[in-house]
């Protein structure tokens, strides 16, 4: 029981990171109907920007307290957003109106470009960082097993929830969010109502990239090591999360992320760690057989 509870905490903290990345996949899919395969690498860029900012900030002697972490988070969000914007501007926008596979191939190309760029610029070695957020709180003690939540895990959960709350408010309550949803449902019509659809799409990439940057920062703090290749697996899993939740659905992406995190953690805890990815993807496949549009996805309605 205590063991299971501990796994639940671990799983939720991991799932939040996947959820943050998954939101980026699902948003872009919703608005332009393409899978942005470079999004995992945008997450990796976010992690690297955080690493670089941490090094700079600690060299500048501004310490490593909560203020520094917040500053790093903001810097990473801003710079990564710039990357997300540029990728869309350079690799996707010129292909808009082209056949569906073109931007997809372009996305795979951007993914390789970003990976290789970081590999060359930062080196291929694994980059470690000292743990900045330490300590934990013991929640419960049962059967000789202590259930605890680390400060790090608590931080991941709280930061993610705050970011997602702001983001949900943005999408559901503001004019910008309405414009985004309008573009999602009928881009041509949105244009006829005076909405600059290109700009709205750019903003979508900027928001998706800054959420990925938050995930990258959390990943860096949690695991303490990153390399140029982390974007691949994290990207694939977040994409899986988005599909599992129902691609195009924002709550679905978060739910999917949480599920993937939980499945992975529980499988590793009770069965074998080696097979955790096999298990995750098997469950995805089975779910899709029975629910082809994912958990919260809605069936595509034919436009007449």
């Amino acid at each position, binding site marked *: 029981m205590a063991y299971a509870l501990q796994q639940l905490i671990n799983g939720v903290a991991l799932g939040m990171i996947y959820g943050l990345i998954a939101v980026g996949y699902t948003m872009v899919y919703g608005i332009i109907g393409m899978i942005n395969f470079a999004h995992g690498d945008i997450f990796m860029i976010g992690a690297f920007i955080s690493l670089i900012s941490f090094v700079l900030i600690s060299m500048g002697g501004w310490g490593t307290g909560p203020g520094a972490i917040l500053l790093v988070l903001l810097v990473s969000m801003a710079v990564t957003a710039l990357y997300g914007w540029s990728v869309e501007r350079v690799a996707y926008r010129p292909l808009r109106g082209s056949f569906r596979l073109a931007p997809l191939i372009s996305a795979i190309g951007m993914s390789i470009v970003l990976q290789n760029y970081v590999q060359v610029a930062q080196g291929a070695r694994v980059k470690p960082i000292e743990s900045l957020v330490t300590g934990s709180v013991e929640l419960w003690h049962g059967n000789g097993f202590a259930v605890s939540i680390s400060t790090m895990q608590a931080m991941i959960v709280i930061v993610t929830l705050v970011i997602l709350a702001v983001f949900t408010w943005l999408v559901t309550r503001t*004019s910008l969010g*309405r414009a985004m949803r*309008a573009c999602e*449902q009928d881009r041509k019509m949105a244009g*006829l109502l005076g909405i600059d659809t290109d700009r709205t799409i750019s903003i979508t990439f900027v928001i998706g990239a800054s959420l990925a940057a938050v995930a990258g920062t959390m990943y860096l703090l949690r695991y303490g090591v990153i390399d140029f290749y982390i974007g691949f697996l994290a990207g694939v899993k977040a994409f899986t999360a988005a599909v599992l939740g129902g691609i195009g659905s924002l709550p679905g992406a978060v739910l999917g992320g949480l599920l993937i995190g939980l499945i992975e953690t529980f499988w590793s805890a009770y069965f074998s760690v080696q097979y955790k990815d096999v298990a995750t993807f098997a469950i995805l496949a089975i779910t899709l057989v029975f629910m082809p549009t994912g958990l919260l996805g809605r069936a595509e309605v034919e436009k007449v």
Partner: protein
Amino acid sequence: MSAPILQVRELVMRFGGLTAVNQVSFEAAQGDITAVIGPNGAGKTTVFNLITGFYTPSAGEILLNGRDGQRALHNTPGHRIAQAGVARTFQNIRLFPGMTVLENLLVAQHNRLQAATGFGIAAVLGLGRYRAAEREAVERAKHWLEATRLMDRADDAAGSLPYGAQRRLEIARAMCTDPVLLCLDEPAAGLNPRESEELAELIRLIRGRGCSILLIEHDMGVVMRISDHIVVLDHGKKIADGTPAQIRADEKVIAAYLGEGDEDEAPAPAEGAA
């Protein structure tokens, strides 16, 4: 007499070998209801698509004399055409079905909201200026909800409204962009006689607000009753242009609708004329 709101000059649109619109010129006067009629396949909707930026014409000019002087619409991208003051509705309704009725009307005011709030910066920061702009947008939406009798459905999903209400909502949404020229593509299609009478009322009300109207319509009852000016197209060419009385008496128009004939009556609705 001020300059016409819309001037179409020698407009040509070719799709491959097919010339859908061939050397069409006409004008729509300021404050008038101008109808574009013609048998199915005459090129009416293509003309609309050219005016609203869906297509780029193969040749010719479309000039709008809007609030800020003359604007050439034939080389303006879609969202700028809306900003210049042209709004339209569709033959097959194109609402945002997943958004509420009110949201559909607010989306149409996105531009004004953005401009009023420093392009979203103020919105993100939740500043007072944004709140005021948003309140104003809701007021404007309410005004058109009342005019189209959709007030009690404001919070329902647009896709769940009955057909006639969706038609009215589409007009309300177009009006929320604050246009100088409203283009209606078969607004009476699928409406019963009572509903099309109400529609005619609504169109007159809109014209009364100083918005000029360009109308494609098959329901000749509606067209003859409310139009100030009628342009007749057939096979991509303009065959007549004049007041309802002139059009009713025009031999070429009667021939186009009924084949060569000697009917004196106004042309019947052209359902079978494809």
